[in-house]
């Protein structure tokens, strides 16, 4: 059950290690985005609301710059047909999803570490809540961006359309995650934040189910 998606993931992972395209571009994008923010705020101290918002802005645009690779690279190398022959659609989607999940977790970990080092007001009071938000938000981000990447790869319009299509889909997730991040800065307890947590959990579950059901239609044509 898990062996085939894992094999596909290993293929992606080793080809990624060979070229290091996604890792390099994501790392540079994070540095560029954060330094632009640091230049524009100068010597001023920005408040907590803005810090929490900018944290998710950087996460969103970094994801948009790198996660489309998963399917676009297959189309570019012309290996889509081979994949269609040797694996079922759900296996392909699982493999790509595992790859994107790991990529999203690494990238957001780097962003979080850089933020806590560089921004004064990035002080997390309720660490457990922040960790929960971080994990749930990353899962939702990875699932949604993987399915949109599959659409983009088939649509042929590689770069520009990706954030346009992803933004409305990700908006409920990002808005709720910004709210939860602010809660964790304020030290709000779990009981008060449970409704927002429930929204994020619901989003993840719905998105995962819909993606698995709809991926067949995108993949087979």
């Amino acid at each position: 059950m898990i062996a085939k998606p894992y094999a596909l993931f290993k293929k992606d992972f080793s080809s990624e290690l060979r070229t290091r395209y996604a890792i390099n571009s994501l790392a540079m994008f994070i540095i560029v985005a954060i330094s632009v923010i640091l230049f524009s705020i100068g010597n001023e101290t920005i408040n907590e609301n803005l810090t929490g918002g900018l944290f998710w802005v950087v996460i969103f645009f970094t994801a948009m710059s790198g996660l489309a690779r998963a399917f676009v690279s297959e189309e570019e190398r012309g290996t889509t047909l081979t994949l269609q022959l040797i694996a079922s659609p759900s296996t392909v989607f699982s493999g790509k999803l595992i790859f994107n999940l790991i990529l999203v977790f690494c990238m957001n970990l780097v962003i979080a570490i850089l933020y806590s080092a560089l921004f004064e007001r990035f002080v997390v009071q309720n660490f457990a809540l922040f960790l929960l938000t971080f994990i749930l938000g990353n899962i939702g981000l990875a699932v949604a961006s993987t399915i949109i990447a599959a659409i983009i790869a088939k649509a042929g319009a590689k770069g520009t359309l990706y954030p346009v299509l992803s933004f409305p889909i990700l908006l409920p997730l990002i808005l709720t995650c910004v709210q939860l991040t602010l809660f964790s800065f304020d030290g709000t307890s779990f009981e008060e934040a449970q409704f927002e947590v429930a929204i994020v959990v619901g989003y993840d579950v719905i998105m995962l189910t819909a993606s698995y059901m709809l991926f067949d239609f995108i993949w087979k044509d």
Partner: protein
Amino acid sequence: MIWKIFLFILLAFVSIAGIAFPIVEKPSAWYEFPFIPGLEENAKIIFFHVPTAWLTVIAFLMSTVFSFRYLKTKNLDEDAKAYSAAQLGMIFCILATVTGAVWAKFAWGQFWSWDPRQTSIFAILLIYGALFALRSSIESEDKRATLSAVYSMIAFVTVPFFIFIMPRIMKGLHPGSADDSNAGPVVDFQMNSSMQLIFFLSLIGFTILYFWMWKVGYKSIIIRDKINKQLISPNSSGQGG
């Protein structure tokens, strides 16, 4: 023909009545509207703003239903129906946004304040825009229909967060929000029967108008596709294609 005249009379009556009938403290005559605290004279926008917002959702729902049917049957006519519904949904979404912003200018003091309702209508506007951007980027008909159907279904599972959950749980200024104490559920309690009558007549009139426009829209799309195909591959047995 007869129902087109009926629709014209209905919408004309709703427009005149909605704008001209006075709002008074204690309505006695049948044409007088009650005074709703918190809404006051601005309450009249309900006859035009609510139907457009309602049709935005209906169009989105229909677009998704026909997308689903396209994925099941692979019949391009279903895609034309979904596309036509989405086009109308975009128009009504813009109308709802604009009428809402105009109302907000007089009720809240500024056109746009990122109230939860405004955020949600903005997100729906973005989804429609993204759908059209996706459609225009794909050449092949089947692929365009499939991918836009999949996208509109993915969008449809996230949209309930916006339309139904978020505006009702978050604190906002829009009537019907979580902390709304004075304007409350406007339709149920604070309208008198004449106001309700005109409100529902307006809702019915706009819905009929929508279905009429939708039918004209999808038929014209189907006919246009047919003519395009004839131009590309004429019936002669030569090298069409």
